[in-house]
């Protein structure tokens, strides 16, 4: 009761009330503009093929059906793509995170001799690169084209993420701790494994998520380096179906009518969008704060 009274008593000046009314309206409109396309895709994915073909779906499923999802899960390429992506993401992220951590710690140590030289070696690659063709020729001459290594190794380290971790280690691991450990005879390696890593859990979570989302969403390396359909990650399968429209009529078995087939093809696309983004959507509310944290650490000038 009393809280209500207090709220009534505070009377913002007219100018402020107009400001808040305008700002809140703008924010509501913007948020709805973000949500509308997402809701439309979800609604369409749960509709029937004919409803999609005749475009009656806007923000709510029309003739609710799960046929789109049945088609997605009976498509063999989608399943192998899904499996491949999970494999590439797990293995790739493990490699990424390990190599990022072992690079970041020595460079975070102010007493490392020639630290400036090594930092330059890393940061220079952010500004200049050999480019697509020389990298492709290298991967080709290493006999990695067509193998899983072509999509795991060339991008094994993101210098941006390495700097993120280094900045974190510099600012949050006190030098007193290192000195105390050294007096007790602790080696650098032991200090790294028993002190630095446990103290860097937060930033490890951040880069793990960054790398994992990167692997899940990547298609370019797979497009240029992989050449067998059984090894394609999900994004390449998605590209073939969603964008290049390579969906053979064999993939759709049940429908006899052509119009139904067209609707089925579109419905499959809607459902596929949802299925492929599902892991990220499910994880998102729980890990959002880590992503935001990453941006914040990144904004500290190191």
């Amino acid at each position, binding site marked *: 009761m009393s809280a209500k009274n207090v709220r009534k008593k505070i009377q913002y000046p007219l100018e402020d009330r107009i400001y808040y009314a305008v700002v809140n309206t703008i924010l509501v409109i913007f948020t709805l503009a973000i949500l509308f*396309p997402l809701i439309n895709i979800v609604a369409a994915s749960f509709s029937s093929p004919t409803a999609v073909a005749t475009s*009656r779906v806007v923000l709510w499923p029309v003739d609710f059906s799960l046929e789109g999802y049945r088609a997605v899960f009976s498509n063999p390429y989608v399943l192998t793509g899904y499996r491949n992506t999970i494999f590439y993401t797990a293995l790739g992220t493990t490699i990424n995170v390990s190599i990022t951590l072992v*690079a970041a710690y020595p460079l975070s*140590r102010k007493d490392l001799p020639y630290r400036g030289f090594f930092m330059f070696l890393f940061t220079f690659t952010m*500004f200049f690169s050999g480019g697509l063709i*020389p990298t492709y020729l290298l991967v080709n001459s290493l006999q990695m084209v067509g193998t899983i290594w072509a999509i795991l190794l060339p991008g094994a380290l993101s210098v941006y993420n390495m700097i993120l971790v280094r900045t974190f280690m510099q600012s949050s691991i006190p030098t007193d701790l290192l000195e105390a450990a050294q007096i*007790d005879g602790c080696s650098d390696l032991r200090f790294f494994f028993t002190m630095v890593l446990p103290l860097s859990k937060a930033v490890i979570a951040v880069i793990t998520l960054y790398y994992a989302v990167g692997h899940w969403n990547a298609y370019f390396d797979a497009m240029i380096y992989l050449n067998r359909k059984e090894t394609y990650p999900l994004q390449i399968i998605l590209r073939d179906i969603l964008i290049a429209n390579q969906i053979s009529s064999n993939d759709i078995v049940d429908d006899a009518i052509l119009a139904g087939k067209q609707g089925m093809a579109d419905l499959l696309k809607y459902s596929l969008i949802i299925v492929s983004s599902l892991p990220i959507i499910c994880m998102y509310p729980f890990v959002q704060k880590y992503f935001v944290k990453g941006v914040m650490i990144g904004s500290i000038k190191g």
Partner: protein
Amino acid sequence: MNNKAISNASASVAVHKISSWKRVRRCWQLYLLLFLPVVYLLIFKYYPMFGVQIAFRDFSPTRGIWGSEWVGFENFIKFFKSYMFERTVVNTIRISLYGLAANFPLAILLALFINSVRNLAFKKAVQLITYIPHFISTVVLVGMIFQILSPVTGMYGSIYRMFFGEGLPTDILGKPGAFIHLYVWSGIWQGLGWSTIIYIAALSSVDPELHEAAEIDGASRFKRILHIDLPTILPTASIMLILNAGSIMSVGFEKIYLMQNNLNLRTSEVISTYVYKVGLAAGKSDYSYASAIGLFNSVINCGLLVLVNSVTKRLGETSLW
């Protein structure tokens, strides 16, 4: 307690007195950690930088990078003279300038708005929702654009028929002039919420007492944003501007490539997609020519970044390094 540990502890004090070889040897475990990343860099980042010399050669696979015939700037001149030079450079600059002009002020504005919201639950909801599209993959985003904007089956078509009864709206996916707008505004849909984070972080450093004092003096919310919040995020904003201006010539490959079709190539072909098509996608790959175009692009990128940084350094305090 052994001697090594004691000398380690005093290392930071006496660093300049010890010979550098001793300092290196004392840190051998740190170098051991650094070994793998450096090997990675040398192989996958620095070796291709030497490989870029094929831009100055007439590459033949049988003779390799070092054995192919040296042709000097021939590949570059061929690119500068071709009609694709003007088209790709103009498209690249147009697309990134338009993106920058739309994205940069809107992100700041949105951050200021979100920051000024009083209702905490509403603020959290706006942030949670507007960050979502950032995590959608490029393939899915482009797929969504195609699905939603389809005149026959998409939401675009159904909303058109809601207002105009029957018929089909114009197919904007096939219009060359619409490409740049589709590209930039879908990018804003995907990234604007996310790009506010860095400004909101900067705004959290504003001392609330400043706002209270100004409020007591009768400053309206709008005035306080103008005179307190905006000056606070100005350094962050100028760093973001440097970063963006430095990458004007490096517009992202992935989304443009997926959005291209035969009808919009005139406005959608940029340098990076052209390099890919000449070098890897064409039936008869011209590695040397593609490398030359790519190298031309990298050199400009690098130069732009250094230039913009030195300009802002001279004008004010903020710089990248």
